[in-house]
């Protein structure tokens, strides 16, 4: 389906929805992130083994979660775009991907920084680390593919297919710590039998994570709007230049 101009011209329902939730998400993000980070930096206890380096956790772990959740979302949106031809879903996925890539990057960098004191090196080719790197490339591939078609809507459809197929990597990342003997920590929060870390660490972690999620939601709305504008601008320009003929 080529993207009809009018179907984009007034994604009115999205706009109404966005208008309603946007203030809330900004407020939530602005409250939760500083709160969680400060808590993590200043008021949570140092680890008896790792000392103060454990504070990296409060940025590392939420980033890592967001990196994976974001990919899951991109894949989900892409799938619904492909199946139900819901244009907005495809555009939303396109808008979300760079955010996910950024979270992946921060997870990688903070993890590396954390690795130096704990493992004695900032990079090992351990399965967890490498698979997150692969996730980063998957994001890059998705973004690059979407951008390398002359026709935006064809690029979006091709990239959506990639996003859906790329889901195979999520289990590899999630379970890499179980399948291999890795240096990396196995899951201690997101486990079937409940979290296994102390509440004094769980709280700031949960608050930062919630803050990141709120931030993501707010940013996503802005980026979707921006993306919609880009499509309209391009369509207009195309028509102008074609009309001038």
């Amino acid at each position, binding site marked *: 389906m080529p993207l009809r101009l009018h179907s984009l011209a007034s994604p009115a329902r999205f706009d109404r929805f966005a208008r309603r939730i946007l203030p809330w998400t900004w407020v939530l993000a602005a409250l939760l992130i500083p709160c969680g980070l400060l808590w993590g930096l200043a008021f949570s206890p140092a680890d008896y083994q790792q000392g103060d380096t454990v504070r990296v956790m409060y940025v590392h772990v939420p980033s890592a979660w967001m990196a994976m959740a974001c990919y899951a979302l991109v894949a989900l949106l892409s799938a619904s775009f492909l199946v139900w031809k819901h244009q907005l879903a495809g555009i939303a996925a396109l808008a979300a991907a760079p955010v996910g890539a950024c979270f992946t990057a921060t997870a990688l960098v903070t993890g590396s920084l954390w690795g130096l004191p704990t493992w004695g090196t900032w990079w090992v080719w351990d399965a967890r680390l490498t698979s997150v790197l692969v996730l980063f490339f998957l994001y890059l591939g998705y973004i690059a593919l979407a951008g390398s078609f002359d026709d935006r809507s064809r690029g979006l459809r091709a990239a959506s297919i990639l996003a859906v197929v790329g889901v195979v990597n999520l289990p590899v990342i999630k379970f890499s710590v179980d399948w291999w003997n890795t240096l990396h920590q196995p899951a201690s929060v997101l486990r079937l039998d409940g979290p296994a870390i102390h509440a004094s660490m769980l709280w700031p972690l949960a608050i930062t994570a919630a803050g990141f999620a709120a931030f993501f939601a707010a940013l996503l709305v802005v980026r979707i709007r921006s993306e919609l504008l880009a499509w309209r601008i391009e369509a207009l320009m*195309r028509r102008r*230049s074609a009309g001038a003929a």
Partner: protein
Amino acid sequence: MAGDGERPHLLEAANLACERGGRLLFEGLSFSLPPGAAAVVTGENGSGKSSLLRIVAGLLPATEGRVAWRGEDCRREPGRWRREMVFLGHLDAVKPALSVRENLAFWGARDEKLLEEMGLAALAGLPAAMLSAGQRRRLALARVAARPGGCWLLDEPAAHLDETSSGRLERMIGHHLAQGGIAVVAAHTARGLGDALPIRLGPGT
């Protein structure tokens, strides 16, 4: 759309519109063809002849409107729809590494008579890489000729052909129409398709 008297129309295109590269090529285009009828699409370069053929073939989604074959929307029943649909674009779909005969076999056409009808009998064993432009076009036409009776969509079928072969093409289309097939042909002149339904597309670029 209703039939033409008693004969039901095989191909019906209703209210087609096509926008490409930001330019509206055509809109509100409707036509329908009963068995044995042909349409000839003319228009300047860039007016959308090829685009129209690709829409009818189902290669390109129409911006608006629908196409029905034997009363069924082509998007719904791709299997049945496509079995009778034969498309020939600007490209010949010829495999240079295969011989002429093998090329036809590749598309499921094993009848030696086809080679003769298209004047390819003498070239049958030659690798297609060695064909001249017109000979290659004839090979592409032979693939089409192998499946008469359905819906032929031919984009400038006479490109590169000489007089003799243009005559072969006319005979081939005539034979097909006589068997109750229909044909939509894009061309720069309506020559040789005198009684075909003319479809004239808007200005080109």
